[in-house]
């Protein structure tokens, strides 16, 4: 027998945790090394303990399971659990990710565990589940962004964002208080932010429209926007057209 999967349960409801633990009790594939009651704790424990497998509830206080996986440095295997979330189910099916619908049976849980266990034996512990789910397009517009610097998690309401700058595989989010780096694509933000409030003015910039103070011609065919705090950002030709459209000038 191979080693047991070191497992963390992230679930806010005690009864739901108890149920899962009792279903897993005595299982020779699983060793539960931690239980977390919320997403903050979950991020901390997963990054610290680097488990092989995480049972992850979607609907949780503070930050959701989806927001949580965006903050993981260590990417374990994940089995999601949800009571009813049409979007989540769509995301799981589309990415062939393991998930449990509450209430689930012991058989169903063990089946998911065996699948993961087989996969770990073939492919190793590292998993791209988090990556896949993270970049699955959201429905509607987001109203907050969750970021982590060093050890603290920040929840930024999108209203506080001034602009976003692309940095290779990351983006830098500038707010009134400071800046935060996040592992997401510009495309994701372009699609997830309300186009009435945000505009992609350049390959490298998304700007909050009400932050713009002035639009200046820079060279013959190029422009810059100047924000209220005097920050200057380049505007591409398409970006200029877009601004003309939203601002009606």
């Amino acid at each position, binding site marked *: 027998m191979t080693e047991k999967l070191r497992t963390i349960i992230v679930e806010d*409801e005690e*009864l739901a945790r108890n*149920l899962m633990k009792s279903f897993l009790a005595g299982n020779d594939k699983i060793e539960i090394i931690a239980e977390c009651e919320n997403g903050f704790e979950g991020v901390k424990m997963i990054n610290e303990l680097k488990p092989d497998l995480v049972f992850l509830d979607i609907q949780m206080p*503070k930050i959701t399971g989806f927001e949580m996986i965006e903050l993981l440095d260590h990417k374990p295997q994940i089995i999601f659990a949800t*009571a009813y979330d049409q979007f989540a189910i769509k995301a799981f099916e589309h990415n062939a990710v393991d998930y449990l619908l*509450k*209430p*689930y049976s012991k058989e169903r849980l063990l089946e998911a565990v065996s699948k993961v266990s087989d996969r770990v034996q073939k492919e190793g512990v590292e998993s791209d589940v988090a990556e896949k789910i993270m970049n699955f397009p959201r429905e509607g517009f987001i*109203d907050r962004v969750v970021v982590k610097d060093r050890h603290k998690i920040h929840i930024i309401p999108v209203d506080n964002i001034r602009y976003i700058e692309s940095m290779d595989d990351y983006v830098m989010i500038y707010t009134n208080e400071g800046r935060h780096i996040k592992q997401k694509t510009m495309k994701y933000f372009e699609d997830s932010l309300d186009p009435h409030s945000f505009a992609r003015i350049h390959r490298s910039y998304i700007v909050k429209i009400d932050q713009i103070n002035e639009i200046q011609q820079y060279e013959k065919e190029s422009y810059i926007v100047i924000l209220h705090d005097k920050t200057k950002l380049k505007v591409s030709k398409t970006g200029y057209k877009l601004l003309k459209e939203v601002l009606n000038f």
Partner: protein
Amino acid sequence: MELRHPFITNPRLTIFYGIFWLIASAVMMLILIFSNGLDYWAAFVEVFTSILVFAFIGASIWYVIRFSTLENNSILRIILAHLIAASIIVFIWMYLNVILVKLLNPQALEWMQKGMINKIFGGYLMYVIYVIFFYAVNYYFSFKEKVRNEGKLIALVKEAELHALKSQINPHFLFNSLNSISSLTMTDPAKAQEMVINLSQLMRYSLKHGQHEKVLFKQELENNKLYLQIEKVRFGSKLSPVFDIDEKCLQLNIPNMILQPLYENAIKYGVYEATEPVEIKTVCRCNEDFLQITIKNSYDPNVISKRGEGIGLRNIRDRLEIIYGNPHLMTLEDNRKEFTVTLTIPQKMN
């Protein structure tokens, strides 16, 4: 109720009114010419001054009706009001009559003076006819408004019923509760049984009271306590409901299923996002005119970005407005720490 004159709000009525008096004038003229032997001009002046002038100033009688409605005033006051109004209108009418006849057909003055008493009597009679006419118009309009409001009310209640059904069988609520029951069957079967029973009772209430408009506050409160009990099993010490209910309020009336959306919101925004215990406090006070219910929950402003008046709250406001005709029966207060909803339920229907 409408304060503007029906002739302003309803042009069709005005046209009918005009046509009616023109025909009456024409008939009157023919009678004066052919049976009383007046010449055309004299007949015209007579009809113009008495009938058309009265038709014009008579329109103002509506305001007298409007401000001395049959429902809100004693008979004596109404009669007195009409007597005074009638005298004023008849006086103005006679005065205009004399002036116009003097201007247009001075020869007729003498003939007119002879018939003065008859004419004044006729003026009062016309006034009475007007009063009956306007009361009928008024009654018709308020009847129409009532029918319209009732239709709206039925639609809103339907929607609230559906919403209540949906939220009591809110899939999230239902599946999570079932998962809790699944867990309890192993650790605490007695509690699992209790929860199944509570869940059934909650659903039965929403099915049973779907059609009725109002229930006793006691019933509505008990139902919501049941709901909170079920959620309490899930959330444990995180959910801490506190009730401060004045006993004598329990027998008062309240529209059914109006409280649950408020508790749902308190749980969704207060308890669900919290990691510490959250108190949901219900305070109820009343006198013989009002039942006032305040539901307050604390929340974490760092997690909840914005809280406006969502669909649930808007539905409650609309329902209260339709039932009681007052848009200010629900007030919201948000100090970025606590969210407070206050409902004021009138107990006397007018």
